[in-house]
């Protein structure tokens, strides 16, 4: 009898979760978001979370700029300064640009390929929760990473080894607190999240395309997502191994980077940059994809040289594996290796240059409408070109010897990551906001916001180019008077605050437009791809009827035909394929059920992380939570 009673208890837990799941199925309220497996909602959560981290990383940047505005800055000491620039870099790369790209993958990819969701909706939710928990875990180190104790004591305890964490700075001998532990374990959790997303989007793109959507009828954004996802699943394991090696050295006294035992810190540099250079393209390829969608829409022309853009993206994906040592010229690899990597680095500029010419060719002769998304896209082309060309100057080995670890490097990678990746992402936000909110972003505010951002960006980072060339090293927390650096640093600080004001304006615009923006309608930009063929915001089931695709830019060709002079003219009303709305209310479409299991499984990960730092009992608890989540996930039906 006791056995029967014992057997009933776990049943009741399962029953409770089932019941919660059924309630979460109502498409409203907070629980419906927590249990959601809908790619659109997950995308919105990705976007909102990464934007919050963007604000945190931005505040870190502003403190850094205030500190450096004048010689002998005294706002933070060297120790705190190290922690700020480490977290600024790590946050912006892993918690802002990557997940914001993932937000666009989630929102756009299933709609662009004519699918009802991604291939693995619950795995998709798991990716999001692992990202959120990993980000919070790492950010919590500000308060918990102190060597003196586990709580905040007037000093921030974040990691202090720089965003690329060179050994031996990451070893206990050089960083005694828990900051680096949080950094390494946090990146491991974020890596799991990214890899799960990478697998999911490759399978989605290869397997879930609408009938007729052959690979070369896919929009360029879908192609770039595919290339990015492949880079993610192959690059992340490499950094995973390197992070495990750091953790073994730190926690268990292993010798991977211990010079006295014969180890070499250079191993870290090779492992990190073998991951790190593909990572650069993981950051920028999605933005290139977005720009390749925005330009044709606002030039009212097809993308110039579609196959060239696609193959250039693929070529970049392959070549990004053969350039990593250009980060390491000054480590003494020898002139043969340096020359080889110099050549490969120059070569990778070719596919990138091809794309830039294709984008300009798209604009050439187009009926251009200068809306905010296009401003950002054109800003991307201009600024990314500058960033790319400064990158080519680094590929020249003797020149790079002079630039290594100066502000010229800092200026270069901000030029490609802010002027490139972030401008592209902002283009995407302005472009697709109407699709997912049903409201237009205010155009006038958008234009002001762009110009303020653009000006602020150049006022911030062009002075850094000069600073680098006149010899200011990176990662110094203050500099004496009389170096001639004061003016340029002050300029950069003013520029940083201009960017901050423009970001505030952007937030105001979003809130204002959500409340009283004009209704967007299904296709406000007269665009070319399938997501614009359905209502804004899209219904839960996306497409009432799965579209049949007949050509590249299929939706455009449903709306326009070319007359004898090759000028597009609207299809006569009624002759067009009937619009999506006429197919009824999606009755009878089967959707996957909401689930709490991805959240529960992902919650096990930070528990394991805290456990490795503080108490192994917590590791056991985390493993139990993780296993419970995975088993319940595997056993619950995908749809009830």
């Amino acid at each position, binding site marked *: 009898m006791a056995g029967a009673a014992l057997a009933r208890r776990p049943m009741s837990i399962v029953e409770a979760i089932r019941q919660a799941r059924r309630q979460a*199925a109502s498409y409203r309220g907070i629980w419906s978001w927590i249990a959601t497996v809908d790619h659109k909602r997950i995308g919105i959560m990705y976007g909102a979370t990464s934007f919050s981290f963007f604000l945190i990383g931005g505040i870190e940047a502003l403190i850094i700029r205030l500190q450096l505005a004048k010689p002998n800055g005294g706002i933070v000491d060297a120790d705190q300064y190290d922690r700020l620039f480490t977290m600024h870099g790590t946050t912006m790369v892993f918690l802002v640009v990557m997940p914001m790209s993932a937000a666009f993958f989630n929102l756009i990819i299933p709609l662009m390929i004519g699918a009802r969701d991604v291939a693995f909706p619950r795995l998709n939710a798991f990716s999001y929760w692992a990202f959120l928990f990993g980000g919070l875990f790492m950010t919590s180190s500000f308060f918990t990473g102190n060597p003196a104790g586990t709580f905040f004591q007037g000093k921030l305890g974040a990691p202090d080894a720089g965003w690329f964490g060179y050994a031996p700075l990451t070893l206990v001998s050089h960083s005694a607190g828990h900051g680096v532990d949080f950094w390494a374990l946090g990146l491991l959790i974020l890596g799991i999240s990214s890899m799960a997303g990478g*697998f999911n989007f490759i399978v989605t793109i290869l397997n*879930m395309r609408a009938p007729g959507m052959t690979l070369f009828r896919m929009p360029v954004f879908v192609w770039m997502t595919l290339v990015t996802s492949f880079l993610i699943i192959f690059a992340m394991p490499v950094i995973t191994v390197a992070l495990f090696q750091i953790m073994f050295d730190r926690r268990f006294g*292993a010798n991977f980077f211990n010079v006295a035992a014969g180890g070499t810190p250079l*191993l870290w540099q090779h492992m990190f940059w073998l991951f790190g250079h593909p990572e650069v393209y993981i950051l920028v390829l999605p933005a290139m994809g977005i720009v390749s969608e925005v330009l044709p829409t606002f030039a009212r022309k097809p993308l110039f040289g579609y196959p060239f853009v696609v193959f250039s993206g693929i070529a970049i994906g392959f070549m990004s594996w053969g350039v990593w040592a250009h980060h390491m010229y000054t480590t003494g690899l020898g002139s043969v290796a340096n020359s080889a990597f110099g050549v490969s680095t120059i070569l990778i500029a070719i596919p990138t240059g091809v794309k830039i010419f294709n984008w300009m060719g798209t604009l050439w002769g187009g009926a251009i409408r200068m809306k905010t998304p296009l401003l950002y896209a054109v800003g991307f082309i201009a600024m990314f070109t500058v960033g790319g060309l400064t990158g080519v100057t680094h590929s020249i080995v003797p020149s790079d010897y002079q630039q290594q670890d100066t502000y010229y490097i800092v200026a270069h990678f901000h030029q490609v990551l802010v002027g490139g990746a972030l401008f592209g992402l902002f283009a995407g936000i302005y472009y697709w906001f109407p699709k997912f909110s049903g409201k237009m972003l205010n155009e006038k505010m958008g234009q002001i916001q762009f110009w303020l951002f653009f000006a602020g960006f150049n006022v911030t980072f062009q002075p850094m180019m000069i600073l680098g060339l006149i010899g200011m090293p990176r990662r110094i927390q203050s500099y004496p008077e009389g170096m001639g650096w004061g003016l340029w640093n002050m300029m950069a600080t003013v520029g940083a605050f201009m960017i901050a004001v423009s970001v505030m304006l952007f937030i105001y615009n979003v809130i204002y437009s959500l409340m009283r923006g004009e209704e967007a309608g299904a296709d406000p930009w007269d665009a070319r791809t399938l997501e614009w063929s359905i209502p804004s915001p899209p219904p839960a*089931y996306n497409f009432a009827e799965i579209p049949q695709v007949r050509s590249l830019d299929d939706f455009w060709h449903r709306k326009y035909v070319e007359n004898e002079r090759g000028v597009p003219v609207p299809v006569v009303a009624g002759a067009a394929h009937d619009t999506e709305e006429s197919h009824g209310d999606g009755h009878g479409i089967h959707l996957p059920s909401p689930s709490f299991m991805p959240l529960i499984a992902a919650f096990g990960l930070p528990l394991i992380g805290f456990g490795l730092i503080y108490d192994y009992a917590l590791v056991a608890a985390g493993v139990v939570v993780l296993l419970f989540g995975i088993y319940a996930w595997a056993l619950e039906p995908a749809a009830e």
Partner: protein
Amino acid sequence: MEQARTAPHALAPTSTGLDNRKLLMWLFLASECLFFGGLIGTYLLYRNRSVGPPFPTNTVYNGVHYHGVFDIPFTSISAFVLLMSSVSMVLALAAIQRNNRRALRMWLLCTAFLGMTFLAGQAFEFTEFYRAGLTVHSNLFGTTFFVLTGFHGAHVSVGVLILLSLYVMASRGKITHENSLNIELAGLYWHFVDVVWIVIFTVVYLIQPT
């Protein structure tokens, strides 16, 4: 939201014709190649670079002769056991594809048993090495050896867990030849872990330092 609640349809055909889950497993294994590639690469980089004993094979270091810790015949036997588990894994899949559930259960259990035998051998080997003074901390050989083979052992352990879970499902009659894909996916993972061991066994044990 009634429209979302109708009965599940049969799985929609995919664009490539490959099942989603199978494609996911192949991608995962491709990604794992880079993971083990990183570990094996590190092992190779640090081979013969230990400062001080214990050494893997008989070594003269600073004029002193040291006995190697490796017991090649023993490890060869446990490698053979792991390879045989791939055979029983194939037989398990063949059984359920012929809808023979009894044979499925037997071969699943056999595969898990062989996997656990391999793990027991690894535990024994680790203990012996530890007694000989080899730890993660002792020297570069210890560091790279334990981390590489340890991560492989962790993969085998996960595989055993999957096999035992499938055995429980099979015992409850939940695995039929319609959803034999579950067995096939577990098999892909299991064979991959075996193949990785062939590489590790060759690189770590068989290619002797000169």
